[in-house]
């Protein structure tokens, strides 16, 4: 028992160092992973699709896609995979860790950049480094997708207005013939400066016990 125990802990220790989670949190997430994947080694899109409570979410597709996006794995790869293992699952989850009392200013800055990068990747679907008008329109349309026809018409106008705002804030003087290609990562950071991502984009990975974990397949 001793040998296998230390081996498991070492395995998780590695992950803990890489992702910053505590061992207990990794344990709980591993249990959830097992639930989602039906005790297999990897999960694919169907597994995540079948979570019932996710059905009401307007940006469901983007969220699921983000799990399979290689850019979120911090390994300079691009493209998307068909299935992911527990480590990749954890890597994606690590974007949602909250800052603790001990994080320094530089660490907070790095955290903010990382979270903004995650959001940016979610919007920039063709991975060209900019969010074009078409992509942004898609984002707003998806957001309003549960609101029927009113949503679709207004989505374009809203996306255009938002794009205009980004352009005016970042490149104040453009000639009438210039063309604003798209939102780069720097511009994206600039416009979302006021939101303080590192304090907003987090989930409390508290000590979640198995009884409270709703299995994705059950009726919930």
């Amino acid at each position, binding site marked *: 028992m001793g040998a296998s125990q230390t081996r498991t802990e070492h395995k998780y220790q590695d992950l803990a160092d890489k992702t910053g989670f505590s061992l207990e949190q990794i344990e709980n997430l591993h249990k959830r992973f097992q639930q*989602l994947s039906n005790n297999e080694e990897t999960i694919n899109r169907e597994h995540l699709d079948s979570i019932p409570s996710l059905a009401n979410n307007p940006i469901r597709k983007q969220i699921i896609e983000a799990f399979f996006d290689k850019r979120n794995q911090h390994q300079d790869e691009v493209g998307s995979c068909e299935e992911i293992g527990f480590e990749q699952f954890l890597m994606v*989850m690590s974007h*949602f860790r909250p800052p603790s009392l001990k994080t320094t200013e530089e660490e907070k800055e790095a955290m903010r950049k990382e979270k903004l990068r995650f959001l940016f990747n979610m919007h920039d679907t063709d991975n060209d480094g900019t969010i074009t008008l078409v992509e942004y329109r898609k984002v707003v349309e998806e957001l309003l997708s549960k609101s029927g026809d009113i949503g679709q018409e207004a989505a374009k*106008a*809203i996306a255009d207005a938002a794009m205009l705002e980004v352009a*005016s804030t970042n*490149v104040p003087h453009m000639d*009438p013939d210039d063309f604003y290609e798209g939102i780069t990562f720097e511009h994206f950071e600039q416009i979302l400066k006021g939101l303080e991502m590192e304090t907003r984009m987090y*989930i409390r990975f508290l000590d979640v016990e198995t009884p*409270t974990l709703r299995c994705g397949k059950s009726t919930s």
Partner: protein
Amino acid sequence: MPSRTGSHSPAGTGKSLPERGLLLLMVLVLLEGSVLPLGAASSPDISHQKNVDNHKVEHEKNYTKKAFPVLDLDYHHIQTPFEISLWVLLASVMKLGFHMIPRLPGIVPESCLLITVGLLVGGLIKLAGEKVPPVLDSQLFFLCLLPPIILDAGYFLPIRPFMENLGTILMFAVVGTLWNAFFIGGLLYAVCQIQPANPSELHQLEILPCLLFGSIISAVDPVAVLAVFEEIHINELLHILVFGESLLNDAVTVVLYHLFEEYSAAGTVTVLDGFLGIISFLVVSLGGILVGAIYGILTAFTSRFTSHTRVIEPLFVFVYSYMAYLSAEMFHLSGIMALIACGAVMRPYVEANISHKSHTTIKYFLKMWSSVSETLIFIFLGVATVDGPHHWNWTFVTVTVILCLVSRVIGVVGLTCVINKFRIVKLTTKDQFIVAYGGMRGAIAFSLGFLLKKEQFPMREMFLTAIITVIFFTVFVQGMTIKPLVELLAVKKKQEAKRSINEEIHTQFLDHLLTGIEDICGHYGHHHWKDKLNRFNKKYVKKCLIAGERSKEPQLIAFYHKMEMKQAIDLVESGGGVNLPSAVPSTVSMQNIQPKKPPPAKPVEKALPKMTKGREEEIRQILRSNLQKTRQRLRSYNRHTLVADPYEDGFSELLIKKQKMIELEKKIQHMNNYLTVPAAPPDSPTMCRARLASDPQAYSSKPAADRVPTIQVDLASPQSPDSVNLMDEFRRADQQEEDQGLMMKPPSGQSGPNRPREEDRGREQQKMTRCLSDPGPSADEEEEDEPFLP
């Protein structure tokens, strides 16, 4: 009459501002002082009535003795309303006066100045030898002066930060106040007992009155906090923490006050009483919130039907809220919490239902009333200080002041240690200091003390003196020094930036994202429940409480429309000039972000028939100048400047109109891209006629029509029926509006807004054959004159 001269007091331009301000002050103070004794000195009504009767009787006996009274002085008739109006006038003119004095408002907070004025006025009244009206007694204060301030706070409460920090606020409000009350009360009792050598009057003070005193003095006062924090513009988090605490501690104060008041006669409080007290606390707070929420829903429901009687919309908001307060007070529940709940619950629904003007009315009435109330409260505090029966006791008063400070600091620090374990954004030492320092006491404490009966509490005067001293200390010392301290400690200030559409989009996006991640984790947290509440709200509640189409409107769209409306109004107010009122002045416009397609140079040239250079130049000149005018108008009258008034009620029409404007604007951009000759966009019928009438050139160029490029309009094309439809709608819409700004006719028959936009490539062919400088001709032939170029 003294009042007339008072109100016509000259605003002499020759005098400097401070002098003018002081003069105003003195005039009104004297005015107050002179009128009130006049009123008080007159004989009471009953005898007056008798005199009148006597006079009448005399009249009848001696019929022709007295001349008919042409001018008569009858002060009693109007006494009460007159005095009330005078007080209100005094308060308002004081406010004016302070802001005229240079530099003073920056150093001294308004509340201090107002208390000083109150002291002066009270002094004058006392000098005149008259009785000061008991202005801070329960009736006037709790029923008339306090509700407007609380309603203003509750209606405009920023819900999101309040909810996010609710746990912290409740901790401070409930646990903090309890701690303060018991600490102060207990230690005060101990101090009172420690002088065995010379038994002073303090020895008679029992424990229960001490605890009662402690509970009165421990509550942070919303009026004082508001008055000071409004001026220092501190960051949102701290503001909401202190302010939220001051609102929510009302329930605790009410319960403790009643508990100790009831039982100080009996002399003991048993465990059962304590237990009942806790239950009472829950009832008081939750009951108050429930009452408020019910009235809030009633208001929202009523406002659903007010589309035909817009004028009385604000009335519903005010009356229902006031009734919520009164109903809660009737059951001895927490009226403040009822008001807050009412305002916060009704706001999103009412705002979706009422007109823009009503919204402005509500906002300004609330601000006005709360401002006047606040001013009056501080003045009355000053007056009551001068008047009130005082009993100064050095020990008691100084110990009270010191204990208040000490207990506040210990309470805040202790609680923060506990709270920080559960918060993500921790409270730093600087934050704690501001929270502790911002714990001001105010008029509520005084009024509660005033309410005590002399028979039950022989030490009432001492209490009042101590309360007033603490109030003066917090308002003057803490109020004056908090601003420099905020500067010194470099505490984060309020962000002045307006909320942008990008932030709104991403806030919503984040909400959904985090809910999704929580679902994937299987962890039913904060976001999950918020999402469930939102969906419940959207599905059931909004349908009941919001009229018409607005009920289905998602939040993002509502925000966007609000923003557009604001921009439109700003534009109209700034004179409709060429400059767009954008936050960052920039030259970026819609065309910069639209994806450009390279104009296919060759095919276009082929389609253009030859013509003489000179003619071509001429035509180009005319076209360009017209286009310039149009583009100018485009830049200043973009789709944000629909005229303010007519669309107040026609919300969906606004939507459709906007859509069309957007489509047509895009059309123009595309036109620019495709043509080598810039096209003159077609004008409205009136414009057409005007131009034709004044410009003979147009007619003269007609014969050469076949030479002019881009004329062919394909009548039989499948697109034209749509252009007719769009034209008709525009004509109809046009008749309702005064100034259209720019009337654009769809040249290539863009279909109605509901049809999806076609692929641009496909239409290129059609665009070349069709005249882009012309409107759809089929529409024209019926009624309108030919446009500029046939």
